[in-house]
């Protein structure tokens, strides 16, 4: 019984959430793209310079 009540509450909440999400959907998408852009910019700032030369010279001896 208690379980059933909880499920119902959850469903009601998610229904109202869905409406809100629909309204701001584009804003969320833009924010996500911006966040990924920021992360990629940050990664670019620490990425090894002269990648081409570095990966060409990266040779390891086999092991184990």
């Amino acid at each position: 019984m208690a379980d059933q009540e909880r499920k119902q509450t959850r469903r009601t909440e998610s229904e109202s959430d869905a409406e809100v999400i629909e309204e701001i959907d584009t804003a969320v998408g833009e924010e996500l793209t911006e966040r990924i852009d920021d992360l990629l910019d940050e990664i670019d700032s620490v990425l090894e310079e002269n990648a081409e030369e570095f990966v060409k010279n990266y040779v390891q001896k086999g092991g184990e």
Partner: protein
Amino acid sequence: MAIHKVLGTETEYGITIRNQAEFNPVLGSSMVINSYAGGRARIQWSFEEETPGRDARGFGFEGAGPADLDSGLVNVVLTNGARLYVDHAHPEYSTPECYDPLEATLYDKAGEVVLARAAAAAQALLGDDERMMIHKNNSDGKGNSYGTHENYLLARELPFNDIVRHFTTFLVTRQVYTGSGKLGAENGRQQTEFQLSQRADFFEEEVGLETTLKRPIINTRDEPHGDASKYRRLHVIIGDANMSETQTFLKLGTAALMLSALEDGALPEALALADPVNSVWGVSHDLTLRRSLELADGRTATPIELQWQYHEWAHKYAQVADLDPVFERVLGEWERILTDLETDPLSAADRLDWVAKYRLLLDYRERDGLAWDDPKAKMLALQYHDVDPARGLYYKLARAGRIARLFDDEQVSAAVNEPPTRTRAYFRGECVSRYATELVAANWDSLVFDVGEEALKRVPMMEPLRGGRELVSDLLDRSESAADLVRALGGDDG
């Protein structure tokens, strides 16, 4: 009842010195380990008991010889009970013996911190424009591979052929959640843009003793580092080095659970593949995860379907077996990862290295049109594994919240110095901390002390679960010196 699955990992790290024209990886690795050990106790590893040429199938010694070709190289034991050494041309870190898969994951992560600190210390010896760089990866993209091995304690009475029959297909199909991701293909395998595993292209045999050439899916090295009449140590060489904590936990947890089930006879059927060796790279090259594999009996199934079968058997087994509660967590993570990989593989980017790396490359493709074979893509894929916390891209993604953590940085730092408390690694690590000047050598199953008498004193530790805190902490507290300790133990003359 299956024996307790004491376990651990060993990882050979990639090493290079930027802007050093005559870079020598053996010297570079020695420099890294000496720099780390320099400020700490330098206890030598002893090889007396090691026999890597012994074959578990019981037919003698292939390539027997000196216990270890590198025994003259730098080789130290740390206060956390781990071993840090030069293996071939790589710095290698072996975790201490751990009590469960979660603890083994923590000590595997502690290894990254050890190597990062060691590289930073070695930096002081380099020229201004040179930089020591260490990567926790398994391939240079040019046909050279180096290993990440897992070790599991098994009962000696388990017939080795049972391991081969039951475990091979499990190891081949687990790649969907154990791979660290790689651009391109190597070792003559069919070209591909991106694949799940760093190591898959290098496996060429089903069973064998080799680890450097013709690598086998099941490795037969029989070196138990314990009482050989009771134990085996299964040496699994087919895994990738993982950065993701969840992934290492899954890799170790599922294997330990499967091996326990196997020991207890809880795997009803051996699912044999028609062509195990070609299935290794076949699974790794299939990013859809939907291509079916052919079984020896003519049936077909996808890697995920086969993993679901193993999950079902393991789940049933866990209902009746008296297992550590950590295995409930293993089963839960296992179920979640298979569900997510089946629905949308990209949804596992917060838990799996191959997915996190792939998604990062997709983000760059979308933003910059970055091609798969662009040197920048190769750089991104390599730098994902850099152990420098400021430069390593795994750490960047984890700090940005894109990858889930199981531990915080304080827990990992503590594991760099302190040993696990429920295995003999506790005794080893504590002896390194407390009796550094008298401890002259250590290995997995013994310690050797010089207590100022004519003969060295050797303390054997043949039981991996004996020597934990509960058993020995009083004894250690009572022993001010190693001489006191040896006297209390009644140790043998060396």
